[in-house]
């Protein structure tokens, strides 16, 4: 546009002179190119640090694995009576299980509960790299799917159809059989949500890329991020547990307040 107008001006009035605005335009273009390139390189660099696997990482991972995981999973991750084989579970599985503190297991139970993670991100990635080096499996997702910039409407619809029957429509969690449960999704990092979908930890089914494409997974993450960032428009959400918590609240606080008022009204002035 700007070029066009300057051309017009050259044709009509002062040939051979650039518009003064052209300098500004040039600077803007230059800044945007540098900035954009920088942003692109830095983001690819960040993505590479999570995925790039070096031999030293694998070796570190092997040592950590032998010290912390081998008791149950076997020295070569071949599995024992106490824990399954880890061949083919992939880096995503390790990153999820260790990163959310589910592994190492604190005690046997119906299900491994999430707890504060015991390893740093670096150590976790090393172990993930080691397990991934044994056999191919799902990889840690790249950053582009975890931004929460997808289609929230589609994500919400996919969530209701695929996830809500265990995790509850608002992601508050729910009960499964034999003491197992689907945990609450509030406060779960996007990368862990993605990894859970591709690896199917505990009792969760695997949602591979044919069932739900990576873009659709990103949409689901977008919806969950929306829920987290936008508290209930109706006020306190009472744990998002639906009519049970509403009923308890109505009885205990609502009716409790009413009864307190009746007692106050009927009290004799003394």
């Amino acid at each position, binding site marked *: 546009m700007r070029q066009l107008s300057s051309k017009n001006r050259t044709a009509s009035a002062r040939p051979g002179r650039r518009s003064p605005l052209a300098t500004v335009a040039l600077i803007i273009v230059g800044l945007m190119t540098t900035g954009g390139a920088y942003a692109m390189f830095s983001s690819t660099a960040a993505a590479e640090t999570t995925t790039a696997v070096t031999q030293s990482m694998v070796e570190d991972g092997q040592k950590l694995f032998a010290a912390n995981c081998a008791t149950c999973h076997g020295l070569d991750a071949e599995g024992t009576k106490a824990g399954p084989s880890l061949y083919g579970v992939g880096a995503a599985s390790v990153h999820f299980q260790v990163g959310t503190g589910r592994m190492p297991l604190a005690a046997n139970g*119906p299900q491994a509960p999430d707890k504060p993670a015991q390893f740093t991100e670096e150590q976790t990635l090393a172990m993930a790299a080691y397990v991934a080096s044994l056999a191919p499996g799902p990889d840690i997702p790249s950053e582009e799917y975890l931004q929460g910039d997808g289609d*929230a*409407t589609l*994500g*919400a*619809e996919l969530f*209701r*159809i695929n996830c*809500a*029957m*265990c*995790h*509850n*429509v*608002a992601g*508050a*969690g*729910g*009960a*499964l*059989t*034999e*003491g197992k*449960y*689907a945990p609450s999704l509030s406060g779960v990092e996007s990368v862990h949500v993605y990894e859970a979908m591709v690896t199917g930890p505990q009792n969760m089914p695997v949602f591979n890329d044919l069932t739900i494409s990576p873009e659709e997974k990103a949409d689901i993450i977008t*919806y969950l991020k*929306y*829920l987290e960032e936008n508290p*209930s*428009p*109706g*006020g*306190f*959400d*009472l744990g*998002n*547990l*639906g*009519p*049970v918590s*509403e*009923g*308890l*609240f*109505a*009885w205990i*606080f*609502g*009716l409790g*307040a*009413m*009864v307190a*008022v*009746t*007692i106050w*009204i*009927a*009290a*004799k002035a003394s």
Partner: protein
Amino acid sequence: MTTADTTDRPAAVPGAVAAPVASRGQRFTGAAANYIDERTSISGAVRELGRKVFPDHWSFMLGEVALYSFVVILLTGTFLTFFYDPSMTEVEYDGSYVPLKGLEMSAAMASSLDISFDVRGGLLMRQVHHWAALLFVASIGLHMLRVFFTGAFRKPREINWVIGFVLFILAMAEGFTGYSLPDDLLSGNGLRIIDGMVKGLPLIGTWISWLLFDGEFPGTAVIPRLFTLHILLLPAILVAALGVHMLLLIINKHTQFAGPGRTNENVVGIPIMPTFAAKGGGFFFIVFGILTLMGAFFTINPIWAYGPYDPSPVSAGTQPDWYIGFADGALRLVPPGLEFVLFDRTFSFNIILPVIVLTGFIALIAVYPFIEAWVTGDKREHHIAERPRNSPTRTSIGAAGITFYMVLFVAASSDLIATHFGLSIEGVIHTMQALFFIGPVAAFFLTKRICLGLQKKDREIALHGIESGRIVRLPGGEYIEVHEQLDDYERWRLVSYLDYKPLMIRPDHRGRITLAQRARAAVSSWFFEDRISPPTTTEVERQHAGQH
């Protein structure tokens, strides 16, 4: 009102010559009142109503909470009808809530979302309406319990008990139809369960279901139909029944607890005009205020989180509103496999069994006053509210009923109990299944023992007074503990209750003992064989003579 006018004047006339004539406002009020009275003869009704006496005990105001909640429901509900579109036409949502934008949904759901996000004050109204509905049913329940445990349903109030019961059922029906109207995922699932229960009825089930839904579930007819029921038929019946309920309340008058000057023949309390009307009017605004605060600060039924109804997804933690919870719980407690195949047909009892149990339980609540009247054979009028302990068997039946209801109610949230207390859902269900049978029986015996114990204690206090802890040595060397005697008012509260004895089996005029007679005597002895009689006047006097 005209009487007030005429009594005012003689007081004013002898005062002084310069006494001011009634002000313009007073004259206008008097004239207007006279105008209306001459055409409607309303003064009689006003006189009657104005003198209606309310006993000043807090538990007598629970019905008022229900009444005021209902008024709030009417007001907020009217607001909601201005914007709600009861149609199942598919539309594309284009409102403010981002995660639903562009989604296909019914016009009912879309308009409910618009009420929540794009109508000024709409979300507040929706939430107040829903909270008020929950409290309406809850306060009716508590009011019924008060009436039950104080025996206020006895003659002449049995009819009003039944009308109150009808109101309770109507309130639940109103609640359920309203719960379904937004056509969100949660209510759609609830409707599907009701559809399943209807279809589970033998022979007629499928027919009724197709009649309700105008074809296969969910169809496109059910929301407009429920809307008509919710705002037209059910409220009309409810208001009519409410009117009769209040009319009978005025005719029968309130019951009252026994006390000095309070007998079976009078009612002691505050007349409605002017004090009680002021208190009651203020109470309405307090109820309205509490409900508004709840609606303003606490989310209820977040339909935006549930999304539009679609028969495929079902959310974890799908429960009905609390008052339908006992039915949901009954379905959850049915053990699997209650069916057999005969003549190439499957006979399933998974649905019909809980439906029968629930219907039986509800019917028992409705007819209880008549059962008790038959058992006691008591034809007298009762205007004194009994203390629950003084009718141990009724109180125990009530406790067993509450336990039964609570077991079903708690079973409806078995999944949430499992996740929040770290239990297995099977464990919770099995415990509830056991409690379904054991709980009411245990509650019955426990409550009966507690009642009898309290009665014994009352009798002891009435006869011997309260232990003061003061030990006195008599001149003869004997030590006694001084008992502080109750005054006559306090003692009256403890000793004035009816003492029923088991009925004797007597031959009728033809000299025969019928089966009904035997049954009645058996139930009567079960009711009244364990009892603590109130101390008689003689006993009290003899005790006093001994003391001094």
